[in-house]
């Protein structure tokens, strides 16, 4: 329903108001003080896991990352394991030995310039991909081509959340419109398919991935979908800051997930 809103409106305006147009304008925006941004995920696959520390910048402009060196990062779990991360290159920090496990909680503590930022997350369960395949479809919305999909047994019980990721010929699809997250309200306990909405050609190599998300991470992606798409008119979502699970004013996300993936060659 969420997506239908914008789609619906775009279509309506497009259809009805052919006289409507767009115009590039110059606008001066206020600039806020920079904030610390921390991002990284622990998975149930072998590490090391990479974490990134950077600074927010002006909204207009090139948006290049301003990485932050010399931060201290400590990752712990609820079983007593502690890992102090090492800075690999400026702003990028790697774990040394910790390994994520499903159904456990993880805690990240980051110190930047004497200030401490904490976040925690839960690594939820996932079932394996039962089958993956592709089929030809001349979809009206996404175009004609081969569409790749997977089938998995969704575990019984409401409260599982997923993200679907896609890459083709080593190019990952990671814009706002490539975010596909879902809860299990409509498919609880069912053998459920998911079809990636990217038409592929013969010879393409495709990697499909499904990741388990905690409720907090799911909410994070929902706000990322809404707010990452930019500000809009009376029909857009109310502009608000993206969720963060760091305290003390830091931005970004500390995630925990169990990813499952499969590789296919269209032939």
């Amino acid at each position: 329903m969420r997506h239908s809103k914008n789609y619906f409106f775009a279509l309506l305006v497009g259809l009805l108001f052919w006289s409507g147009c767009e115009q590039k304008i110059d606008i001066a925006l206020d600039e806020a003080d920079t904030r610390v941004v921390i991002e990284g995920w622990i998975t149930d696959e072998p590490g090391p896991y990479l974490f990134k520390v950077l600074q927010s910048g002006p909204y207009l402009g090139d948006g290049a990352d301003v990485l932050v060196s010399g931060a201290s990062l400590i990752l712990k779990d609820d079983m007593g394991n502690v890992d102090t991360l090492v800075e690999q290159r400026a702003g990028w920090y790697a774990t040394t030995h910790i390994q994520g496990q499903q159904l456990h909680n993880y805690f990240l503590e980051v110190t930047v310039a004497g200030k401490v930022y904490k976040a925690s997350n839960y690594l939820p369960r996932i079932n394996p991909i039962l089958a993956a395949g592709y089929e030809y479809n001349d979809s009206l919305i996404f175009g004609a081509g081969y569409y790749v999909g997977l089938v998995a047994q969704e575990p019984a019980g409401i409260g599982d959340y997923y993200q679907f990721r896609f890459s083709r010929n080593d190019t990952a699809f990671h814009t706002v419109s490539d975010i596909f997250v879902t809860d299990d309200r409509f498919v609880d306990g069912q053998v459920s398919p998911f079809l990636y909405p990217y038409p592929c050609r013969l010879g393409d190599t495709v990697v499909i991935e499904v990741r388990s998300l905690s409720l907090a991470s799911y909410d994070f992606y929902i706000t990322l979908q809404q707010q990452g798409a930019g500000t809009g008119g009376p029909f857009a979502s109310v502009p608000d800051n993206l969720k963060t699970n760091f305290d003390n004013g830091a931005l970004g996300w500390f995630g925990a997930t169990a990813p499952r993936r499969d590789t296919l060659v269209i032939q």
Partner: protein
Amino acid sequence: MISFVRKWGLWVLILLGWATTTSAQQKYTLSGYVRDAETGEDLAGAQVVIPSVGTGALCNSYGFYSLTVVGGEYDVVVRYASFEEDTVHLRLTQDITQNFDLREKSYQVKAVEITDEAKTDNVTGLDMSVEKMSLREIRKLPAFMGEVDVIRTIQLLPGVIPVGEGITGYYVRGGQANQNLVLLDNATVYNASHLLGFFSVFNADALRDEYKLYKGGIPAQYGTRLSSVLDLHMKEGNTKQFHVSGGLGAISSRLTVEGPIAKDKASFMVSGRRNYADVFLLAAKDENLRATKLFFYDFNAKVNWRISEKDRLFASGYFGRDVFKFRKLFANDWGNATGSLRWNHLFSDKLFNNATAIVSDFFYGFEAETFTGDRFKFESGIRDFTFKDDVTWFVNPKNQMQFGIDATLHKFNPGVFKPLGESFLQELNVSPDYAAETAIYASNEQTLSERVSMVYGLRWSQFAQIGPGEEYNYDSTYENRLDTTTYKSGEIIKLYHGLEPRFSVRYLVGAHNSIKASYMRTRQYLHLASNSTASFPWDIWVPSSRHIQPQIADQVAVGYFQNLFDNQLEASVELYYKSMQNQIDFKNGAELILNPTLETEILKGKGHAYGAEFMLRKTRGPLTGWLSYTLSNAVRQIAGINNGLAYPANSNRRHDVSVAGSYQINPRINVGATWVYASGRPVTFPVGGYRVDSVFVPLYGARNGSKLPDYHRLDLSLTIDGKDRETADHKRRLESSWNFTCYNAYGRRNAFSVDFREEKKDDPNHPGQQITVRNAYKTYLFRWVPSITWNFKF
């Protein structure tokens, strides 16, 4: 007890006061109906006056009046808007029933009249913060795409602001769009817009000419919404002759048939409208666009039967739907349906009773195919059953009482998701909520002296959320659900009630100027779950519950009213202050659809608004229209938004100017123009940004801390009537007219919205490489939108 006296003592004293003024002289009652001589329809608001004793009465909304005076011989004068005045000489030695039939003034009369009998309603009436509109008047003004729209016209009034360019949703005096009550023959219309707000659901051809918008000083008979009441009535149908009228327009066509079932006894009116927004799509090159269906239609019907002089029966209904379809992939329809059955009964020549049974329904449905080929449907809505009884008691010429009851059963369907056929999808229901909303009220309009009149009233409203249902209990953070209480059918889950005092007073300073003041408290027990700025048809109404408290507003207003140049010009200034409690908003990213624990997504707070409204209006002569200016401020403060600090409400526009005018050049040609200017809509712009999971996201500062550019627009219209119009015989004749309009005549690119987009650009520092930059774009919707409409009547 002491506090009761302190609080309500004033009311008690006033009520006693009027009881003693009813002294025992030999008095008789003159009562009856005032009607349009040509159509036989009631003229609500017509004045019946006995000048020699300086007394009079206003017809109620069914055209009934009652006037009690000492026996004797009198000239009785009846007046109404643009109708010719009627004077009857009567000898009152017993109670008399006297009906009046008034004729509309011909063009010649209107054109030459320079001074008229004192038309001083603006000054002498008790109404303040009320806008009275006439369809006759607004038909002469430019209409968007030729569609005469009652809601679009009220947006030109002071204190009323459209939600967005071209959208029929509106804010009244700093309130929210969902705090406006819209009534059609007393039935609540939940979603008054078609095509996501670009047209209102009201077909002007099916409506009675006069309608009112209450922005403040709302009479006690109205409740359920915080901000305003728009009270619309369908036409009753001509009781004398058959008529067919209609129009062919650029974007829709209309047809209305009305006439007597039994002459002067019973009449009917049916009206239909079909919009064809998608006709343009047939010309599209794109096959997918050609396959898209998008339109709306609506029907109005009314039957009216005068059983006797004492009894009248009305039945009316509205049904409207929007349809949006794309091949087999999705089909979407939504709309309102209302039905009213009304019985007017005269218990005596002083006691008028109006009993109404109402059904009101809003439905939203969506059927679609997923990418995997599975089909599903989604449905949501709300349905009300209402019974109302309103009594008007014409106590004596100095007192007119109104009292009544109001009871509604609401059924809320928050949403049902159903897979169709064999599917891996699971059915999902959020169980319906039920609530009973009731009220009793009484009010009295009292003339204290020649200079002072007042209306005081009290409404006591109750709201019970009732079973079957489940109530969840949460910890103080609302993050964790503790336990669930299950309620049986009919059991009260949560009860709220409260008093809503209403008061207005008018002091006549001189013959042509007055001061008025009013206070009102309003309560709203229903809340709209919406997290976009405008409302969508799938937005969900939720009842007040243990977790969501009723909204309460208090408003005070004072005004100065002056008529100038022999009442040719009506001028007024009003100042208001409004405070709103228990306002709700939603958390960032809130899931509003199919969410059984919606209360966990709610944020609560308060708001206030104040402003000054200036109005100058000319209602007679070849040139009519108005000039209005509003200076206002509206603020909201919600815990969890803007760090809990107050911020400008979406309805905030500091300056708002409207000019509307029409000029009758000759009997056949009329030109109209409107010009609006408003400060830009408040928006939240980013103050920084950062990249997370490869997406660059904005970092926002203060909520609504910036403004869109100021808005202004000129619309023009030209109406040319067919030649046969002035044949003065009253037999059936063909009338026709051409209407040409141009919306946004000087083509200003008014910003509907401003958004930011990522774009690739050559890197000036590294030739051959590209960098990503963000640019601001404004979307503007309508420039020079022309339309032609042909209207006819025979």
